[in-house]
């Protein structure tokens, strides 16, 4: 589903973010990208979303090449992804429900289906009772859940969560991770970046991409 083949990424200011990354991520996999801050975790996500393109090497997402792709192709790729951004990127002045629906308006689903999926997603993240609350009135944790609801309501093939456990205490962090992992039931690939390795050290059925200074090592654990 996602194939990195000797991918390197150099930013315009000549900073080399990634060196010769090669990894194959399959549909339904749970992937943790770990490593210290600034190691290149977010760069990997940016590549998958087509925000950055590989400087060298090839990257295919949903069998489409990211390099030299048209804007339309990149948008198509993004529509299959449910992103949970580190800073959430919720639209202020709107309710939780409106935020979730806004992420679906341009997808090929009817307004009725859109509302059903949005309500379901908010229920699933435990915010059904706050669907009409303006997002600026929600707590940090609630905002994060709205961001997750927006991502999953789209019924994506891939969920990308960038540092979803940052700023959360242990219990809430575990809850968020469990919530994200639960979407694998729909054969959705879930990719989570985190530097909180203690939260996932006991994971038995996942792939670990450990990033350090732009180089990655891959560890696969199976049940």
């Amino acid at each position, binding site marked *: 589903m996602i194939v990195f083949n000797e991918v390197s990424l150099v930013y315009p200011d000549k900073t080399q973010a990634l060196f010769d990354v090669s990894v194959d991520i399959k549909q339904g996999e749970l992937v943790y990208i770990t490593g210290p801050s600034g190691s290149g975790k977010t760069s990997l996500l940016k590549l998958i979303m087509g925000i950055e393109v590989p400087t060298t090497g090839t990257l295919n997402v949903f069998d489409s090449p990211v390099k030299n792709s048209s804007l339309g192709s990149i948008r198509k790729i993004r529509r299959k992804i449910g*992103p949970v951004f580190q800073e959430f990127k919720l639209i202020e002045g709107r309710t939780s429900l409106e935020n979730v629906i806004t992420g679906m*308006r*341009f997808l090929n689903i009817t307004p009725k289906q859109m509302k059903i999926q949005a309500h379901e997603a908010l229920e699933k993240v435990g915010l059904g009772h706050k669907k009409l609350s303006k997002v600026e009135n929600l707590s940090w944790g609630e905002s994060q859940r709205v961001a997750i609801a927006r991502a999953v309501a789209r019924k994506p093939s891939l969920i990308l969560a960038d540092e979803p456990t940052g700023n959360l205490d242990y219990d809430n962090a575990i809850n968020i991770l469990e919530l994200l992992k639960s979407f694998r039931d729909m054969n959705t690939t879930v990719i989570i970046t985190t530097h909180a390795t203690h939260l996932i050290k006991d994971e038995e059925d996942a792939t670990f991409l450990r990033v350090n200074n732009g180089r990655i090592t891959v560890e696969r654990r199976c049940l």
Partner: protein
Amino acid sequence: MRRFLFNIGYFLKESGRIIRLNLLSNIFTVIGTGLILFLLGLVITGADIGNRLVVMLNDEAEVNGYFSQEVTSEEMDVIAVKIGNMDGVRSTRIVDEDEAKSRMEEILGEEAKILELFSDNPFEAFIEIRINVDAMDAVINNVKNTDGIEYVRDNKEVLEKIQDITYALRILGYLMIFAVGITTLIILSHMIRQGIYNNKDQINTLKLLGSPGAFIGFPYVLTGVILTLLGGMIAAFFMVWLINSAYDSIGGTILFLPLPPRKELTDIMMLWLPGISLVLGFFGSLFGLSSIRERS
């Protein structure tokens, strides 16, 4: 298209939100656009009246052809028909000696007594030729070269002035329309860019979620169209008010100035000003939107 229709309500709500986000600035945009379109309305009215004046003056454009001594009255008729068939000639009419004399008497008024000093009628028959001003030179030349015509009297200088006035009025009208169009486009595109800047975070989020450019951009186009349409309606309202007031105070007509019918003029304002504002709003918004183009 279906998805677009599903989202009409959303687009309208978004436009309302964009307008409210920068309300004062948008109110000034509406007022500014309204004033510019009001100026355009004045230009259109002026051009309409000017065109009618030019048509009227054109209708009066004529040259006179004088017959040779040996030409008989039957031959005069034949010459008149021949000249009438020339390109650029709208009509011909033979003015006989008696009519020529009575015309001169009218012009001279009390001084017409002087004509009594002549035992015979000193005036000659001639042919009155109404022409299109644009074809003036060719017509004068052709009439001069017609057998039976001895000489042609023309008001070339006056006719050339009419031509110059027509040309100047047209150019002025086009310049004003061009200036109004460009000004509106610049104001609007600036306003749209401002709106985009104010919403850049939201736009960026939509891009990351894979939203098509048209979905992101349409509320801004709609906003531009709504604002200019409001400006156009304000301009149309004031123009209609001005026209009605002017017609009421002058009683519908000024001597020598051919005013168009009041209803015709007000209809033009009510149709054209909002129509032009719609087109300008659409293109101004598209122009402003070019700033959110994403690099591929």
